[in-house]
């Protein structure tokens, strides 16, 4: 017969009544809580009986305190005097139980209780949620900037999935903060009128919907792209979580000073995940990264006999294509200059993507070129709009951006190419690539 049992719970720490009720129901079924770990509860088999539970908050407790400190021993002894048995502690919570029918409650002043809970939440729960939102905002901003720097990575890669996932995660964090604030407000009002702390409003629908959507987005991207790098990133994140929990558990068993424990924890939780991430990323990058399928047939070549060329083509999604080619036309005479020509082509089925890429390309050139440069719409080729960026400088070079219905072509070339030549080249590229 099974003597212990581990269950999952998603109850909020400050919803202490809910936790107490759940533990009391379990004791009626013959299970006594022996360890509480936030999301998992460890029970041992007992004779079914009506046990009373009490969840008590101590703001000065730390998540690293696995066993009661000297001062908490005093509390435990006082609780024992009134018929309460100490069970365990987790975070800033201590859990007691009593088999007496009507024991003196551990807390007889609801105002003091609410204050202890609020202080505890202000120290751990709320900073975690706010910190998470801060990280999400940074991540959102970095992803947004990436659209302009590496549009092919954003639209052809994880970026387009990343943005809504960050948004959904943000919604969950904000919802939890609002839920707590509303709970605190209503509890305070209730306590001021002689009542007890209230129940938090239910937000499980919002949270569950967000979690399901995040999971669905992640799986969709994974199956669609087969992105092994993302798989490794998630594996790395999960491994880091396991390491962090292992460090916390190890520290909980050690008899170090709390501040020293904090230093060790923060040191290890930065160093180990960093090493892990770098190692895994490098392994994945060099062995598994897949920018898309190389598609040579889609490459455009100038006269192969007279030029050296590098080229690449990433066709890494059904909706996005990025091609890139660079050509150095060798001088045939000493007087002739070395001619350089390179192009990037972005093609997407979505107009809004092409608009973003167009703006980002124009902005990118603005950024790279010094002041004095300007864009000028120099000519139109059939249905295509063509912009030229001309820079007055010693090493003059031309940049052109061509916008078509479904693609953006950007070209940089030595100024030795005349406008007529450029126009011809653009036409050749567009025809060759059947744009």
């Amino acid at each position: 017969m099974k003597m212990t049992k581990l269950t999952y719970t998603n109850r909020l720490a400050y919803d202490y009544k809910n936790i107490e009720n759940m533990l009391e129901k379990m004791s009626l079924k013959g299970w006594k809580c022996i360890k509480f770990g936030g999301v998992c509860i460890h029970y041992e088999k007992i004779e079914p009986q009506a046990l009373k539970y009490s969840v008590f908050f101590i703001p000065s407790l730390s998540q690293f305190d696995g066993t009661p400190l000297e001062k908490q021993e005093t509390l435990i002894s006082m609780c024992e005097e009134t018929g309460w048995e100490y069970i365990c502690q987790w975070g800033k919570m201590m859990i007691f139980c009593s088999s007496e029918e009507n024991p003196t409650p551990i807390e007889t002043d609801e105002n003091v209780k609410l204050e202890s809970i609020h202080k505890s939440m202000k120290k751990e729960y709320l900073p975690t949620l706010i910190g998470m939102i801060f990280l999400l905002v940074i991540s959102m901003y970095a992803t947004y900037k990436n659209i302009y720097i590496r549009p092919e990575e954003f639209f052809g890669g994880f970026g387009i999935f990343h943005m809504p996932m960050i948004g959904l995660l943000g919604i969950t964090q904000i919802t939890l903060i609002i839920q707590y604030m509303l709970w605190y407000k209503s509890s305070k009002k209730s306590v001021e009128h002689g009542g007890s702390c209230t129940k938090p409003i239910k937000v499980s629908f919002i949270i569950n919907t967000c979690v399901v959507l995040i999971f669905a987005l992640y799986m969709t991207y994974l199956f669609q792209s087969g992105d092994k790098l993302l798989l490794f990133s998630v594996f790395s994140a999960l491994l880091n979580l396991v390491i962090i929990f292992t460090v916390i558990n190890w520290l909980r068993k050690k008899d170090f000073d709390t501040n020293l424990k904090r230093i060790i924890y923060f040191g290890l939780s930065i160093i180990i995940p960093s090493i892990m991430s770098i190692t895994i990323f490098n392994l994945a990058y060099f062995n598994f990264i897949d920018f898309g399928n190389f598609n040579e047939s889609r490459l455009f070549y100038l006269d192969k006999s007279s030029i050296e060329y590098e080229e690449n083509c990433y066709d890494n999604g059904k909706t996005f294509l990025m091609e890139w080619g660079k050509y150095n036309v060798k001088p045939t005479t000493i007087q002739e200059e070395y001619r350089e020509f390179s192009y990037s082509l972005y093609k997407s089925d979505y107009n809004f993507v092409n608009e973003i890429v167009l703006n980002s390309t124009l902005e990118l050139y603005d950024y790279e070129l010094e002041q004095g440069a300007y864009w000028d719409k120099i000519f139109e080729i059939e249905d295509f709009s063509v912009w030229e960026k001309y820079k007055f400088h010693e090493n003059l070079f031309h940049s052109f951006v061509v916008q078509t219905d479904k693609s953006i072509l950007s070209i940089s070339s030595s100024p030795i190419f005349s406008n007529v030549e450029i126009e011809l080249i653009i036409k050749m590229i567009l025809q060759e690539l059947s744009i």
Partner: protein
Amino acid sequence: MAREKFRTLTEQMFYILLLLKNECCGTDIMKKVEEITKGRIKIGAGTLYALLEDFEKAEYIRETKIEGRKRSYIITEKGTDALIREKKRLEILLCDFSVYFSAEEPEILQVEEVEYENDEINLHKPIGI
């Protein structure tokens, strides 16, 4: 924060400070409060623990000794002031009550304002009671 919190004392706070006139440990306080109030007021171990911590932070009490898991405390001068202030506040309430409800011909009371430096609180101190 503590000053704001202890502006007026709850019954439990009042009895804890009152009993700490003599050195006491937590368990003794719980038992004695129940005894003095004939079971009307019970202080839970957790509430007592939290209040003792707050009183200690506010320097209303100080720790005197630790014997095993037991910690003993005694009231400080600041704590005594708070207790006296509360007593006066309660007296004023009683007096005001008697003016309106108890006496058939209520005595007109002269009231003077007394400012308590420690707690920046103005109390109306009745004279001639």
